[in-house]
């Protein structure tokens, strides 16, 4: 089904301008570092159509009918996995999901061998989540099949980065020069890393805010080496939040305290919790986002999470739409 047809269906017979996707050059979605602004805009244009599909009574479109999408999760996940599987199903694809913990991996099979088996089963794309940074890159170098990274270790979570950006764009229109604050465990956050690249494409001013012990030693030099002058590091949240347009706290894992990376949860809350009082320092229209899952009462207060300025639930809905767009581009093939 051509995209314009899809859009026609989606928009209830109203004809939308066709989108040329002839220039789509990506076989994999590993991170956003090699996606241009134009490419991200294309993804978002398709996401708009998918949002309209999701608003319908009958959400299913036959775009990926006859295609099979595999999800291979080497690390527990409920949200991202459900989001990807629903995205595939709404597009009419068959899905097969392998729980790596219960499959041959638990019997000692290597990453590449496990994925080769899936490839030999003739699936059209593999969506993988893995606790080790870089695992999907190892896969992409050793397999022929398309790999969509659903989160690798502390490295990247491109579909989350896209849905964050899409949600920001929905509300702020022009993102150029807007101030976005990511606060929390930057060191271990794949969401933060993917947001670094996504924000670059749209000229966002990104502030990464964390205690010094939760920032990698090499981050400052990385920003210089990679030409990421839109990013700054700030350890004081009260300073970072000033005039912010968007504030996004990151999940704080309680193990961080056991490893000595933070002195106590109580101190962390005092210094880094996003709450109503702190949000007063931001721009009047400040919006609050969270990649989930939330630790309410730790990195974010209940009121901040559920206030009118919270976009957290929208992020979840947009997540499905963005993932539908990615599957459409990666697995659509001749059906497009």
């Amino acid at each position, binding site marked *: 089904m051509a995209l314009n047809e899809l859009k026609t269906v989606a928009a209830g017979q109203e004809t939308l301008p066709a989108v040329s996707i002839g220039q789509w050059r990506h076989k994999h979605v590993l991170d956003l570092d090699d996606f241009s602004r134009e490419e991200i805009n294309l993804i978002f244009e398709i996401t708009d159509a998918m949002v309209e599909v999701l608003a319908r009574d009958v959400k299913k479109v036959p775009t990926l009918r006859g295609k099979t999408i595999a999800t291979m999760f080497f690390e527990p996940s409920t949200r991202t996995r459900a989001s990807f599987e629903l995205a595939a199903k709404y597009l009419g694809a068959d899905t097969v999901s392998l729980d790596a913990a219960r499959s041959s991996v638990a019997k000692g099979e290597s990453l590449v061998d496990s994925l080769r088996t899936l490839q030999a089963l003739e699936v059209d794309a593999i969506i993988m989540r893995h606790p080790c940074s*870089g695992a999907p890159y190892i896969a992409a170098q050793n397999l022929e099949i398309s790999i969509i990274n659903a989160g690798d270790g*502390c490295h990247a979570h491109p579909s989350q980065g896209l849905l964050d950006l899409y949600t920001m764009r929905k509300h702020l229109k022009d993102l150029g020069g807007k101030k976005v604050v990511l606060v929390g465990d930057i060191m271990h956050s794949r969401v933060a890393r993917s947001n670094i690249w996504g924000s670059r494409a749209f000229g966002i001013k990104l502030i990464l805010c964390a205690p010094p012990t939760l920032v990698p030693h090499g981050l400052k030099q990385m920003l210089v080496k*990679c030409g990421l002058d839109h990013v700054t590091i700030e350890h004081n949240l009260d300073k970072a939040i000033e005039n912010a347009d968007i504030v996004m706290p990151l999940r704080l894992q309680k193990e961080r305290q056991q490893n000595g990376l933070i002195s106590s949860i109580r101190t962390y809350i005092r210094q880094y919790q996003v709450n109503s009082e702190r949000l007063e320092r931001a721009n009047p229209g400040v919006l609050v986002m969270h990649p989930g899952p939330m630790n309410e009462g730790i990195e974010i207060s209940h009121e901040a999470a559920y206030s009118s300025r919270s976009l957290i639930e929208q992020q979840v809905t947009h997540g499905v739409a963005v993932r539908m767009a990615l599957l459409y581009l990666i697995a659509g093939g001749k059906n497009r």
Partner: protein
Amino acid sequence: MTANDLLIKNARIIDPASSTDETGDILISGGVIKQIGPNLVGPALKTIDATGLIACPGFIDLHCHLRQPGYENKETIASGSAAASRGGFTTVCCMPNTNPPMDNATTIDYVKNIATVESPNINILPIGCITKDRAGKELSEMAEMYEAGCIGFSDDGSSVNNAKLMALAMETAGSIGIPVIEHCEDPNLSRDGQMNDGWVAARLGLTGIPAAAEESIVSRDISMIEMTNAKLHLTHISTKGSVELVRTAKMKGLAVTADVTPHHLTLTEERIISGRTEKSVSLAYDTNAKVNPPLRTAADIDALIAGLNDGTIDAIATDHAPHASEDKLCEFELAAFGISGFETAFGALMTLVHSGKIKLNTLLACLTYRPAKIINFANGITGGIKQSGIADIVLLDINREWTLDPESMLSKGKNTPYSGQQFKGMVVATIHRGAIAYKDNSIRIS
């Protein structure tokens, strides 16, 4: 008159030990050098025309892993020896992190016996564990291992974390008269570390190993030399700070020596991003560049080269660490540390000579006389070319260009970050005790 074993004709003979650099012939008989000079005449059973080649003392490697006993899937004494000979080495010192570890006279004996039977064309000198089972809890039977033929002690792979135990080991080894060879790494500072703690680790989302993890142990051990009367050898130092600490210690006259690997002299942490992958992905996560200590930065390389040039660093050692393909074809965090280094050492090091960063003579000294001295010229090795000395000689073509195909390596471990790399400078023949241990097809024997 009986025929001599071998006559090497017309070589450029470089012997850093005696500051020799002249063209001439070398006549070998009964495994020793009989005569050195111009226009020597046989009769010899074999003659090599070495016109255009350098003849220098066989290379001596203070640090390698032959994996036997216990990890014969990665390497055996036989396969490791073949690779070492191809790399120009006539003497290699093998680390004791085998399974079981070489922590007693019996395992030292075992390795020496296998070496004698299976690898007659190379000196294999075992290094014994500092602590039993390499566990860092109690000292191994050092004197017995010395009697069985070990030439140094090391818990390579780990430091001895208990400083008191390390001091006792230094004192014991010092009284025996052989070096303690320390792998410098504070395990708390390096915990979960995968690569250098710098911008590349931040970029890739990998846990870093800071320079301080190495330097804190370098500093601790140096501070115990006088108290223990030890010969301390620091192996594979990799940071600018370590070079500075060793330089200062040597200026004070302390008995410390150090070596550096070819890969720490030629590659940076950035190799892990770029890799040598055929399929274009933006980040390679090249597990073949995963090694401990990790590849560092350009500033560290500059400091290590300066350390070689001013004598702060005594020797170059490969830390040849072969692995099976499945140890590397996996997630970066799960991949084994180590580089299969015998066969690329000389080619990689020659890039530093061709670019003018170190002199050929310095390079050869770091591979011959200087390491020989650190191990007290054990087993009759001289690290030099001199009359009546053991005929351990390597022939080099420093202008020969070649490209590395890992599959052609003689080591079982094909784990190299230099895959596909073009080198200028090649080992063309290796002679151990007068016998040809390795020769390239270009070498004709008449």
